């Protein structure tokens, strides 16, 4: 299999993530969609590392994974707080700051 197969999988995954991001009303779902997009990027990095024959892409993927984990920690903490204060996790209902 060539590089383009990996890239196609990655692009499909990214588009799924974008679709989820735009359509989900649930904050947890939105977070999951963002994760999909991040992992689509990771697949790209690893695939390029494999076909270029060096480890640069893999190292970047490691960093990216660590970053994503931190993001999920913060995001889920926000979601929990949101749930505690409002009783639901729908993004459009949290609109008190809207002028």
């Amino acid at each position, binding site marked *: 299999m060539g590089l383009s197969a990996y890239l196609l999988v990655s692009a499909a995954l990214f588009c799924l993530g974008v679709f989820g*991001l*735009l359509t989900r009303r649930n904050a947890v779902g939105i977070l999951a969609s963002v994760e999909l997009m991040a992992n689509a990027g990771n697949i790209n990095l690893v695939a390029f590392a494999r076909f270029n024959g060096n480890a640069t892409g893999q190292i970047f993927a490691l960093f990216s994974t660590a970053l994503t984990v931190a993001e999920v920690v913060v995001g889920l903490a926000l979601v929990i707080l949101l749930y505690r204060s409002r009783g639901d996790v729908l993004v*459009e209902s949290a609109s008190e700051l809207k002028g």
Partner: protein
Amino acid sequence: MSPIQLALLATFLPLGTAFSLIVLPGVRRAGKLPGYISVVTALVALVSALQLFAYGLEVHDIARVTTQWLPHSVLGASSAAPSTIEIGVLLDGLSVSMLVVVCLVAFCVQVFSLGYMADEPPADFGRYFTWQSLFLFAMNTLVIAPNLLQLFLGWELVGLVSYLLIGYYWKKPSAARAALKAFWITKLADMGLVAGLIVLFVNTGSFNWTGTVAVAGPVTLLLFIAVMGKSAQFPLHVWLPDAMEGPTPVSALLHAATMVAAGVFLVARAHPLFEQAPNTQNFMAYVGGFTALFASIVAVVQNDIKKVLAYSTCSQLGYMVCALGAGSQVAGFFHLTTHAFFKAMLFLAAGGLIHAVHSNDIHHMGGLFRKMKLTSGAFIIGALALAGVPGFSGFFSKDLILEEVWERGLYLPFAALLIAAFLTAFYMGRVVFIALFGKPSEHAEHAHESGFAMTFPLVVLAIPALCAGYFGAELSGMYGEATHFHLSPVGMTASALGLCGIGLSYFMFGAPQGGAALRTVFAPLGRLAASGIVDKSFLFGYRTVLRGFAGGIGWFDRYIIDGLMNAIGYVTLEVGARLRPLQTGKVQDYVYVMVVATIALGTFAAFLR
């Protein structure tokens, strides 16, 4: 004491008195005490001035002591010459004579005021004498000024005191209005003085009146605008008749003898400057001549005794200005001196008459001569001096002016002055025949001679009013070249005209069956003069021209400038309101836009390649 010390004493003692009265309300309200303090101050100033006079300074004997006031750097470097601004004392014949005039008249007026103002409440009485002392300081500062900047200082101070004293009866709306009117009109004219000083300083680097000045023309013209305001020359004379709202002694001191003469003094002082500007001098001669004529016409129909004297002051100041315009510092200043004495006496005598009948109207007086011999006598002496009857002081100075104007070849102003001389005698005759000899009115029934305080100053002033003319040669020697008096055809014509004026007024107002026919002849002239045409034209100018202009500017500001700003604001608000729905606050909408935009831009880039 040295001359300088005497001059400083005469100037700063009144300031001390005024200052003490201002900061010590207890003294100011202590009944007659402030009046006595002020009179003693004026007496000390008078004695100092007389002693200075006794030194017999001539115009070239100049005692000048100055100290640096403003360093040059404060005023910014001028391109011409390095300069320092000085403040100090300048004593020569001119300033010493003026000091004597000011102090003598001020002393007499203050003594008179002790009687005239005796019924005022203590607080107002104190206030009155505070301003009187302040005036003496201000006027003396002006007189001894060694340069135009210090003169300007005194000039503005006397203007302030004039405002305060005209508005002495400030509870009367007309007095408050008159004070404001005097203040505004003189301030308007003083803009000319400020501008003239600036032009002078920028070009020469000093405020001195000596030396050759390239810009003498504009500078003197600007100075003359201020003179027109202060010395009540047409058309800026309108404040002076209204200034009669002040107490009569104030009118005598400020608005007849000294303050209004400050303008004449300025021109006499800055004579070297004016000599370099013949065009300004000619303009002055015409303005002065016209004012002399115009004011004497208006005076003929006034019934208020103070208004008659006010217009007569205007007219006599016109004589002085005309003389200065003819280049004769001596004639102008000589007339200033004699006029100060007899006009102050006239005003004080008029004050006595007013005090006796409690009315300003000459028809309410009537036959006062029999009841108030001394006051009436003083008034008659003053009137004869003013009319230029031979032998009285006004005759000599008026004659000198007419001669100088004739010799300079200013025939039109000369004719105006000659007619004014006739009218002067006529209106003074009218006042004398109606107020002193006319039919007694019921107002005058209980009139009686005034007390010592109100007759003594009249006697003091009557002496110079009678005799000052005979010392013309000596006096003129003090402030210019000595002029010897000689009978000239010009002077005789003027005197003859004056006598005719008196005779005519006798036939019209004095004779038992007064000439009714003559009165009808003069009626249209009277109506014209009584209509207050100058005041009306000022009002017209104010209401239509100035307010129209201001209205136009206001319209432009309101609808064009403000309109532009409002339009910008309106458009911004509208655009904001339209764009506002785009800002939903939902992150997903923004992401949507972002995605679509990225796809669009990517597609666009792909096509571009």
